[in-house]
């Protein structure tokens, strides 16, 4: 029999598990925002291309991946629920309507490609195209609104910080989406996709500046919080990375551009986590140590995640290897 005693007496290997789970939770969120981010970004760019073939090229490029990518949101929600139940419950119930706005956008985004394929008449496909673009743009926007409100501890849903973080996140998904589409569907899509990515990355930097400005006003300790060395380093790095992204797209080094978009996403989420820590729900003042579950379930979850997440990485490697290289519209089912 398994001895529960050993698992209840103290954290596994004496590790700082609450902090690790705080970090893991944000890592899961960042992974979702990067991976499903390029699906969302591709959806936004879908609204900018002209022909049916180009639209189908976008759908084919994201088709095999998006469902797996979206599961990172489920895992993020599960990790937050399992490790910090009170924070999960407090955040989700306080931003009630916003959470359902996110869900609504995700439902429409998920259904649209399935529906689009079903009929070939113009009106039907146009309607689902609109739904696809709307869902793809609104999902990251609402998620950003949620993140902004979460960060400063806003009770309501409509706020300036929510707006700027929402715009920031949406632009970041376009940055990822453009690189992804250049990588997967270059020959079926117009070269302007690269331009969209470059414009988006400049817009992203401006939006980050706007976000920092609003944060300097809204955070209790104001600018002092933002002058943390890690945050300053990440902001400076983001500017350099944005330049690198533009260069990579122009030289058609699309995989590098996509990688940079990923680093930008993880960097942004790291800034959010850094500002928040040791708090986890600034609205109530709850901290990581207030809301963490007790030792036994935490240890069990750590073992579970430690065994399962490496497997998940393997699944994604298999999937992305199977679909390496360009994907043509003919592969859409």
């Amino acid at each position, binding site marked *: *029999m398994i001895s*529960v005693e050993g698992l*209840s007496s103290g954290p596994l290997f004496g590790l700082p598990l609450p902090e690790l789970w705080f970090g893991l939770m944000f890592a899961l969120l960042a992974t979702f925002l990067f991976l499903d981010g390029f699906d969302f970004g591709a959806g936004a760019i879908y609204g900018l291309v002209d022909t049916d073939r180009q639209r189908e090229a976008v759908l084919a490029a994201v*088709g*095999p991946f998006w*469902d*797996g990518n*979206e*599961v990172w*949101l*489920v*895992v993020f*929600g*599960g*990790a937050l*629920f*399992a*490790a910090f*139940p*009170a924070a*999960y*419950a407090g955040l*989700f*119930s306080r931003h*009630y*309507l916003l*959470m*359902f706005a996110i*869900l*609504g956008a*995700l*439902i429409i985004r*998920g*259904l649209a490609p*399935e*529906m689009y*394929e*079903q*009929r070939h008449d113009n009106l039907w496909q146009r309607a689902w195209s609109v739904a696809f673009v709307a869902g793809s743009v609104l999902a990251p926007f609402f998620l950003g609104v949620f993140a902004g409100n979460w960060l400063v501890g806003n009770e309501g849903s409509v706020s300036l910080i929510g707006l700027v973080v929402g715009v920031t996140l949406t632009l970041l998904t376009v940055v990822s989406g453009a690189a992804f589409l250049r990588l997967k569907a270059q020959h079926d899509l117009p070269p302007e996709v690269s331009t969209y990515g470059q414009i988006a990355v400049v817009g992203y930097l401006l939006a980050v500046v706007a976000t920092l400005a609003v944060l300097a006003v809204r955070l209790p300790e104001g600018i002092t919080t933002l002058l943390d060395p890690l945050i300053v380093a990440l902001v400076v790095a983001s500017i350099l990375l944005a330049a690198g992204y533009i260069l990579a797209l122009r030289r058609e080094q699309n995989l590098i551009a996509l990688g940079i978009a990923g680093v930008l996403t993880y960097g942004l989420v790291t800034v959010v986590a850094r500002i928040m820590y040791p708090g986890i729900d600034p609205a109530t003042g709850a901290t990581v140590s207030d809301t963490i*579950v*007790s030792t*036994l*379930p935490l240890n*069990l*979850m750590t073992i*579970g*995640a430690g065994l*399962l*997440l490496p497997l*998940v990485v393997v*699944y*994604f490697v*298999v*999937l992305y290897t*199977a*679909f390496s290289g360009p994907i043509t*519209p*003919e*592969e859409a*089912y």
Partner: protein
Amino acid sequence: MDPVIASRAQFALTTMVHIIFPVMSMGLAPFLIYFTWKDIRTAEPVYEQLRRFWTKIFAISFVVGTVTGIVLEFEFGTNFAAFSTAAGELFGGPLAVEGMMAFMLEATFLGIFVFGRDRVGDKLYFISSVAVGLGTWLSAVWILIANSWMQTPRGYELATEGGQTVVHLVDPIAAYANPRFSYMFVHMQNAAVESVALFMAGVAAYYVMRHHVWGFDHENIDFWETTLKIALIALLITAPLQAFHGDMYGRHVAETQPQKFAAMEAVWETDSYVPEYIVAFPTSLDSITDPRAKELFGIGIPGGASWLASGGDPTAEITGLNEFDTESPPVAIVFWAFRAMVGMGFWFILLSFWGGYRWYKGELFEDALLHKALMGSSVLGIVAVELGWVVTEVGRQPWVIQGIMKTREGVSPGLTGTEATITFAGFVGLYAALLGLYAYVIARVIRNGPPSGDDLRTNHEPTPPEAPATGVADDD
């Protein structure tokens, strides 16, 4: 609307709509693994048709299942924050593991399974079909571990923190290896396969009848005949098993949730030698809305309910609803849902024997009445699943965690009636549209039939990889 009522109604609506899609994907999973295996091994066109046609239905169901499933995970936080805070330590873990262990497996390999036939070798393709199928079933494992704990909680300790009652995990084996889990899992998975078998048989029966009885020529009749036979075999296995196992499950409920069992049987006063009303006729409006076993006019098996509750003793005592301290669950819903589910279960057994007998006689394709019965029953399996969940979830009210927390105490404290009503109304509209679209799309896929002729890989000579894959473009 009151936030408690709106939250409960919304959760009921969103789960009842969601469960349709996992039933389709979990039920289709074993068939798809079999079709993929046969397609690879035999290279017979009919197995490629079976694999591709049913994969399409699987993929659509899976996508709708994904987006409606995320809603449920969020709703624990949005609408039932007090429950989530109190029970997160026990309840959140299985949900997180479900995401990592099951959902990740199915969602990634689904990409290969649906889109990747021409990109990967036979072996990896077959592995993908197994991974997707396994993922759908593992999902059920973790969701039912979480649910079974709410039905029969064990391995926990109660504490009061900040004026709130909180559940702490003390014995993970007791909590998660819950006896209730195995009953729920077998009942649910068998129900899913049975439901899909009924659906396949119903659809196939239509085309078989058109071809063989009405004389319309059908180019893919071979495909539909095979579908009907395979579905019938699955039905012959699952339908009797469901009744047999359901009987054991019922006994377990009687032991562990006597209040739910009393509601299922509408027994108000504690009694022994309680009959089981297989057929109950309401004789007045009151007996529909407020059924009382003693006053019903029906065909009762003497001592049947007692026999069911005790595992063979017709004189056993059943505790009546009046004995419990808390209010009763809505007895009418539980009582009638249970009867309708059991009635359908026996009808499915009859149907499977009828079809099996005709097949044995070599008349499977000629019996138009059987075909019509199968067509009429094509979605009844899913209806029975819904009714079963109604018995399970309505029957345990007023408890969200049996004996520990009432459902109304679990609702988010800050939630306003306006907010809850807005989202509930939104879901009524959105999910009505969603169901309509799903039905429309599935009907279209069926009407278009399986891919055939030049579209099939098995009808092509092996082509060098650089050759254009002709015909794939007009797949649908």
